[in-house]
Every structure is written in C-alpha cells, then in structure tokens.
C-alpha cells in the first residue's frame, strides 16, 4: 500500500515537472502579452498599456469611406507627449485616436508571398485610370479628407513619394514648413497597387502655426550645436543633416539631426527649445 502511494506521488511529480518544462516559454509569452500593464523602462519615450480596464470606454463606431465600422479598444500608447487610443476592427486593422479624433489607421492586409507577387505581376502594365498620376490623385483626395476644417492641403508640401517594394505600397508624405524649417505637422498616406488606401497618419496638425520663427536666435542655435558636439564628441567632424520643428517633453523644439565621423559614421540628435 505504501509502495503504491509512493508511486502515485512520484508519477504526479513527474507529470508536473514535464508540464512545467514544456510550457516554460509559453508561460513567458502570456506574462508579456497579458500582464504587461505598462511596458518599457523608466525613461522610455513610448509606453504601451495593453490591459484595458473597465474605466475606459471600450467600443466605438465610425463611418469611414461610406462604411460603418465597429471598433474595440485594444491598447493605449503614450508616445512623446502623445496619447493614442488604439482601436481594432474585426479584421485586426488598427485605428488611432488622439483626443477622440481619428488621426490614422493601418489596415491589416494580406502580405503573403503569393499575394505580393501576384499584385506586382498584375500591375506591371496596368493603368489604374486615365489620370497621369492616379496614385497621387488618391493621396491628395485622402489627405484633404483627413484635414480638419479650417486647414488647407495647399499649406503642405509633398515632401516625398516612395514605393516600399517589400510590401507593395506607395507612401505619400506631406509636410508643413514653418518659415525655413520643416515641421512634424505632416500627413502620410499608404496606397497599394490597386489604389486602395492602406494606411493614413496625420501628426501635429496646426500645432506649430503660431510659432514666430523670426524670434529664433540662429546664432544661439549654432552655438548650441557647436558646444554640444564638442562636449560629446570632441573634435569630430560633423554636418547638420536637417532641422525639424517638433515636440519633445511637451514643449516645442527644433530637432537637429547631425551626421558626424567618429569611429565610423554616426548620428546625433539635439532638441533646441523654442
């Protein structure tokens, strides 16, 4: 009887051990994906809240391109002074809301090898419409729709049009200049080869319109760059790649992107408060 009980005990222990070993990694996955209320480290710029508690309104309905879409709150993202509520639809497409305003969406699209190859083949010689640039027409119309009342697309410059070969999308990027500076006030539209809008994003619309760039002391700005480069990188040669008005730590800044040479090529970014 004693021997029988001992065997049962050993068996139970062995089963428990086997389960523990085989499921260690799965358990890790659950810890990361379900438990992580705030992910990241202390000084992170970006934090993601995945566990959405009952204090938030979890559902929302929108009309987009004449379609009625039901959305469910999936996560909250806190990124460099921005708070996004990220909703998802039944197709796992993501919709970003900032202060209850839809500022972008990224559709969940089929990126299988077969689909990508087929699309490339189909559109090799196909013309989307009689327009000389049908994709730009779509991008312009979409950008115009995204802008809130009172804003005009003519205030924006089409900064770049890129085709991302790996996922078959044209990316149209419009930016607003404030005086001689480019700003983070921008519109980005992704369009697939069929002319479907696959993603949109508007950033900081109108946020820097009231900045008086004539009050920026350029001499002081140059001194700031020079002294910080000397402090961090000694006599390393450098060049300013570009300067962009944006937000850092809830304040308007000029982000200065620098390329320098020190043990290879390297980049540095400074934020100059304005």
């Amino acid at each position, binding site marked *: 009887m004693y021997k029988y009980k001992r*065997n*049962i005990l050993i*068996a139970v222990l*062995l*089963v428990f051990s*086997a*389960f523990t*070993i*085989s*499921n260690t*990694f*799965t358990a*890790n*996955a659950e810890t*990361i*994906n379900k438990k*992580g209320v705030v*992910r*990241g*480290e202390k000084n992170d*710029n*970006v934090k993601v809240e995945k566990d959405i508690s009952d204090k938030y309104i979890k559902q929302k309905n929108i009309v987009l391109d004449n379609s009625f879409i039901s959305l469910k709150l999936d996560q909250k*993202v806190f*990124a*460099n002074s921005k708070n*996004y509520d990220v909703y998802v639809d039944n197709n796992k497409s993501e919709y*970003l809301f900032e202060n209850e305003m839809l500022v972008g969406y*990224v559709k969940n699209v089929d*990126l*299988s*090898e077969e689909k990508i190859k087929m699309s490339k083949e189909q559109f090799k010689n196909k013309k989307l419409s009689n327009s000389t640039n049908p994709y730009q027409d779509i991008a312009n119309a979409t950008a115009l729709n995204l802008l809130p009342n009172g804003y005009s697309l003519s205030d924006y410059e089409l*900064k*770049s049009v*890129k085709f*991302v070969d*790996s*996922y078959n*999308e044209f*990316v149209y*990027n419009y930016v607003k200049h404030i005086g001689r500076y480019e700003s*983070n006030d*921008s519109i*980005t539209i992704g369009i697939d080869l069929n002319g479907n809008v696959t*993603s949109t*994003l508007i*950033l900081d619309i109108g946020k820097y319109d009231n900045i008086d760039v004539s009050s920026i002391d350029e001499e002081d700005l140059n001194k700031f760059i020079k002294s910080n480069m000397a402090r*961090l990188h000694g006599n390393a040669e450098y060049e300013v*790649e570009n300067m*962009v008005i*944006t937000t850092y730590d809830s304040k308007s800044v000029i*982000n200065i*992107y620098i*390329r320098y040479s*020190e*043990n*290879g*090529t390297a*980049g*540095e*970014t400074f934020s100059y408060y304005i």
Partner: protein
Amino acid sequence: MKNKKIIMALILCLTFFGFLNKADAASGRFDIHYYEEPGYTSRKPTYTKAMGYLSSMGYSVYGYDYLDAIQTIEKMKTAAGFVIHMHGGPGRQYMKNNTLLCGKKGDATCRDINFLPRGSFQKMKIAIYYGCETGITTSSYGDICYETVNKGATAAVAWKVVTKIDEVNEWNRLFFEKTTNDTIVEGYRHADYWVRANIGNTAGDRMQNNRTERGNIYAKIN
C-alpha cells in the same frame, strides 16, 4: 502492476504532448549586440525592449555589450537570430579593438562573412544590422546583408542612412512586437508605421525608406 503501467503511460503521453506543444515555438539562442557608450543615448534598449518578445517566442536571449568582430562572428555561427546596434559604415560594423565585421574583407581589420564556409549561418532566421550606412554596398566591403543570406541566414536587413539610436531602439521593439505572431515583412510594415506615429515623421521616413533587405521576408521567426 496494472497501476504502474497506467501511470507510466500517462507520464509518457503527457510528456509527449508537452513537447508537441513546444514544437511550434522558436528555439535556440538569439544574440543582441549593442555598444553602451558613456554620455550617449543608450543602445541597450535594443536588447532590453526586445527580449520579452523573443523569450515569448521560445528563444534564449543574450545581450552582449561591445565584443570584437572575431568573437561576434563566432557567435553568429551558432545563433538562431542576430541583432547588432553599433557604429557602422558602408558594408561594415565597427567593433571593439578597432575590428570590423564586414561583408567582404575590405581591409586588414575586417572579419568578413564572405570568407566563411557556405551554410555557416544556416540556423539564423534573421540578422539585423543597425548602424549608420551598413546597408550600403561597396566594392571593398561588399553587401553585408547579401553575404549573410548567402551563408544560410533566412533574411537580413540593414539601413543605408545615418541611423538614430532612439529611433532604432523603438523600431526594433515594434518589429519584434509584430513578429511574435507574424512574418518578417509584416514586422517591417508595423514598425515603419508605428515609429512614425510614436517618434515622428522624420524617424518614419528614415527607417522606412532606406533599407537594404535580403532573403525571405515572408518567413516567420517565431
């Protein structure tokens, strides 16, 4: 006696199912190399922010702070995944003790991938080279991504521009967030979109429009 047999059968079944359950998960060692320079923005988050996702996929994740090229390439031979975030140059990464990890042997300080036997990286599902201009091909140092895939890695990616540390840290986090469940190309698209939303328009342009991609981007790493 009968009880013993039942118990043994039970143990065998459960152990077998346990391993079956694990068969879909990734396994092996995933190496993340970074260089912590005093006074600089930290590159360590390239490791710390990705390790949770990679562990959840089933990898054993290791972070290495500034090894030389010889040590690094030896580790690459047995790694299931490889990320490096250091200073770079066209076709090369700058490593400890003035050594270079290169596509081809551009000079005497190089430890080049081209020299390795075919199949050296056959376990490697992805290699990501973060550093300035590492994705540029030169006749001397070669194409580091092509050479990596040519030695057996499933996919490799690098950037052709000056990269910024905080942008890389975030793009890397977003990439592994997505590839926990999806393919490499879906990881690219997700990270491209969200780095623009989270960090800014300039960051989005830089990371999205300046890549050198080689290998099978439709593969999964999870």
